[in-house]
């Protein structure tokens, strides 16, 4: 069965590659079909990604949960200490303060922005119309030395320093196989505001019939996945702001 699917994918890749005229939806359809099929992607409830961030000798283990309902968290492990880099339970977004190692809630604007774009799982392009996003095909461009389709994704506007701004990013799908190999999103705030933050995707591999990039480079920081678990068990309390701390803070008041 698996071999059949593999063969099928290879044939699809071969069949669609020579096509020239493209629309955004055709490109996206090819992407989802080539990587497991739209129904399989729609059936996905969540992922747990286990991997490491690698920087010149330092390998920091990471664990990332992303759920269909928008819940997500990123845990890192430094010197045997596990800490939640950020977490969002659908309502509250929080991070761990590196000085105190205690959780702190993110500011209201950041949390609201997170809420506005919770539909990104497993891909912001999946059912993008229902999510209220727009996608536009902008033409071919050479990225990572190879020919790509450039796609513009507009998500719901977010608030930046008190002012509403559009959420725009660009994705580059390799023309040969229709998978995204690069994304660019505008840095929303700070001195780099408006400059592009670039992520690269490669090492696509199959997990339970779906293809995921096992290697991601975000603004030059490499992240390698060791394992991707589909539909992981995820207790809601994992994502919630730790109540014990909340009480402690209350006590102090």
């Amino acid at each position: 069965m698996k071999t059949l699917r593999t063969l099928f994918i290879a044939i699809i890749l071969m069949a669609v590659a020579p096509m020239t005229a493209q629309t955004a939806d055709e490109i996206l359809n090819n992407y989802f079909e080539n990587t497991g099929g739209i129904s399989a992607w729609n059936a996905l409830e969540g992922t747990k990604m286990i991997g490491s961030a690698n920087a010149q000798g330092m390998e920091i283990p990471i664990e990332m949960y992303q759920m269909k309902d928008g819940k997500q968290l990123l845990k890192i492990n430094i010197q045997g200490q596990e800490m939640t880099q950020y977490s969002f339970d659908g309502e509250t977004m929080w991070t761990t303060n590196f000085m105190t190692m205690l959780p702190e809630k993110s500011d209201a604007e950041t949390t609201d922005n997170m809420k506005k774009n919770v539909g990104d799982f497993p891909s912001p392009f999946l059912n993008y119309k229902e999510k209220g996003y727009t996608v536009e095909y902008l033409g071919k461009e050479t990225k990572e030395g190879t020919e790509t389709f450039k796609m513009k994704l507009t998500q719901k506007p977010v608030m930046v320093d008190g002012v509403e701004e559009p959420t725009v990013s660009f994705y580059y799908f390799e023309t040969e196989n229709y998978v995204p190999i690069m994304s660019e999103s505008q840095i929303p705030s700070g001195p780099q505001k408006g400059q592009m933050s670039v992520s690269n995707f490669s090492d696509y591999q199959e997990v339970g019939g779906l293809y995921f990039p096992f290697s991601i480079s975000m603004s030059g920081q490499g992240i390698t996945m060791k394992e991707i678990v589909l539909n992981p068990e995820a207790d809601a309390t994992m994502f919630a702001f730790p109540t014990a701390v909340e009480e402690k803070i209350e006590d102090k008041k």
Partner: protein
Amino acid sequence: MKKIFIFFLLALTFSFTGNAQEEISLKGKQLFGDMRARQIGPALMSGRINDLESHPTNPRIIYAGTAGGGVWKSNDGGATFAPIFDEHVQSIGVVTLDPTNPDQNIWVGTGETWTRNSVSIGDGLFKSIDGGANFEEVPGFENSERITSVVINPKNNQEIYVGVLGALWGDSTDRGVYKTTDGGASWNNILYVGPSTGASDVIMDPTNPNILYASMWQFRRSGWGFNSGGINSALYKSTNGGASWDKIHTGFPTGQLGRIAVAVAPSDASILYAVLETEDKSKNGLWKSLNAGKSWEHLNNDFGLVVRPFYFSRIVIDPKNPDIVLKGGLNGSISRDGGATFKNLGNMHSDIHDLAFHINDSDMIFSGTDGGVYRSWNGGTTFEIVENLPLSQFYHISVDDAVPYNVYGGLQDNGSWYGPSSSPGGVNARDWNSVGYGDGFRVLKHPTKNIVYSEMQGAENVWRYDIDRNRTKTIQPLPKKGDPELRFNWNAPMAVSNHQPDRFYMASQFLHVSENMGDSWTIISPDLTTNDKQKQDQSKSGGLSVDNSGAENHTTIFTIAESPLDEKIIWIGTDDGNVQVTTNAGESWSNVTANLTGIPANTWVYHIEASIHGKGTAYAVFDGHTMGDMKPYAMKTTDYGKTWSSIISKDIQENAFVRNIQEDYVNEDLLFLGTEMGLYVTIDGGKGWSHFTNNMPPVAVHFIDMQKRTNDIVMGTHGRGVIILDDISPLRELNQDVLSKKVHFFKTNPFTMLEESGFAGSFGAETQFVGPNKSTAARIIYYLKKRHTFGKMTMELQDMQGNKVLSLNPGKSKGINIVDWNFNTANPKMAAAKTLSFGGFTSPRVPQGQYKVVLKKGKQTFEHIIETKYDSNSLTSLEERKEQEALTQTMFNMVEDLAYLVYKIGQIQQKANQVIAAKGKATKEAQKILTTTEALRKDLVITSGDNYVATAEPELRERMGALYSNIATSYDRVDGSLKSNFELINEEYEREKARFQKIMAKEGKKFMKVLEKNNLGMPSIKTKKEFLTKD
């Protein structure tokens, strides 16, 4: 296995689609992969601004359209700016926001409009509909050269007017006012006066979009003169959306007019201001109309109002108060009484081209100058510079052989400078040193002494600056008895000899040589130019306003090239088209101009490169833009100029005129071409060229030098400062054989592991430009025939025995990939504790030697060997270095050993806690082992506090970690203090280990026994090897 199969299948599928015999021709981004240019600024003296544009409702947003560095956007009210137009031509005329959708729709008219001698050219009209993330060219303006105005009807954004100033150096019918009523799909030229008259201002009445004003300007520049004014210059008004136009000159003097600036008061549409250039000096300057142009009254002809109209014709009126008027100029002027009187604006860089009031608070004023953007908070009295606009406009650059090497160069209106190519914390403004005043041009370092030659315009001063002694001497060649008047170019050529360190060349119409660093000079040529007298009278240059700055001096020598192989062979090129060569140090000269087939007569010889690959070999590039010819020209000769062949291919943009060429000193076929539209590279001697665009805008490249030790290509750009392409050596190896390989590793020389550990304060970096440094890491460079997308691809560094040193993140681009390795191995695994041990983040450096790069791609493995070597400037002897490495390893092992000990304690405690929680048998023993091991653990690691000021006292782990880090990062020998501290820590650790053994022998034994007896299971403890395995 399955994944491999997929990969195999994919590979198979695609291998049939290409023809294996076909020649592989990679261009641009496909070839260069992730080779990226490095922009080091400086922004210290920024560069010329052409146009400022405020957002109509959001005061945080302001745009700067620059003369040669593209469009920059500020999102923070002008504190900092970032470039948004880096994929297009960098010479900007105007930036206009669509008033109906100012967040998204941005129009950029290219080609600077303050038409000095050194201006660049534009390349059409562009539009963004996504806030500047992407721009597309609007058809119809391909030949516009310079666009002054884009005016959009605020009630209907489909109706747009574009003012085209047009060609500066020749006639053109692409001029005047254009209109679209369909958002830019189609255009009509609605005001055209003649082939030498363009639109210098087009504005719209703020209350009635059918009322327009347009000033038309007759102007022309040549290589040797400038003319502003004529009977066609005029001010027009239309009241019917441009269907018809009337001159509105009532009150103006008759006769010829020059450049006219016009502005309408935003708060009162009946008030207009105009600045006129006329035949009658007393009538020049500011005029005002109180009846929307029906009649005019002359108000002011102060210096600030009449100065250099071609350069400073901009009036800006306070959005709320029609009596407050700003005027661009040498210093800039402000009137607060409706134009009757003016005072200078506060101190800032001179030459103010545009000004903008803050939309809500007129006390805040932005100013665009020859030296960047300035801000005032007090109505124009005090100005501060924006510190992160690296727009410097180099005419020339050179490099020395220091470590790191320095870059020398001169700037338009901003003096001469040198600064390091790398500096602690990045190349900062404070790293740059001034070595000349005025306009700066060529700056050359003496080959052996710490002496710098620099100059100002027209060689009015040539300085020899002794850096060590801080002494300057003026050394330009001066005429002696019997000499004719010397004609120096505005950008006068100079050269140092490759063969005699003190020999220094300069050229007027003659070649001058000095054997004593400029103290005395000898002329060693006849007049090598055409000596065309018609091109030599600059006293009348300027037209209505005489503008004899020296910028138009012509029939001069422009480039000098001494052969690196033979000091007697010298090439010169002149601004009027001559190439001449001597093979006997000037005794005789051959004029080889006639042999330059395909080069139009009198085309400016911008640069000659005497080749290192043959005595008779040279390259010459020609720039015809001052005759209206923008085509690229580059020629090569191998026979002393007897025959030449063009090395230009169709890959080069047709208006990318050439200013410079640099050959590689190793591979004769590798050449770098500096054009008005950026850098081009050929790997086959000019048969095909690739545009280099990785972090490199298509900015005018005026000069290229190559640093031979580092193989860096260093570019002096006219608008984006110094841009460096680090280590181009991989390009030397590219050929069909390499390009057809799946993976190819490029050869690299042994990498020096620099032992530098200085300080770098980053004060001011929040808002200042800081140029990135050259990487000091080992660069693993490889070519991939195809972008790696499916399946696993990893890179591991191993010692020669195959032991893993560490994993690296490989690049996956098609083309050239570069992976940096900073010579580190993995950092140690630290004992778990309540807080972090910062010493534990240290990764030891590898010893010098050979290492294997193992790249695994799918099921294939590719290997390559690289070599590292110690810094020759090391403070230690080899023996001491080896001792430091051994002790580092000892400490590394000790740190990990402690981590394992703490882990074991943790596992035992975990079991004990389980037993206690179950409240069954063995609770007593469990409690006992828990108590004893916890007492030990508290001495081993920190168990309370945080990472900041609530931190606990350091325990053994922290002290051990700190010592490990101190030893591992030391570039000096490990001596006294570190060694005695080692003894202390080592002893302490031995003691604690013994303590653990004792606990295990007593409480531990009892606990294990009782566990076993009651079948409670043993603590699960990994072997040390398992524990330390990171993957």
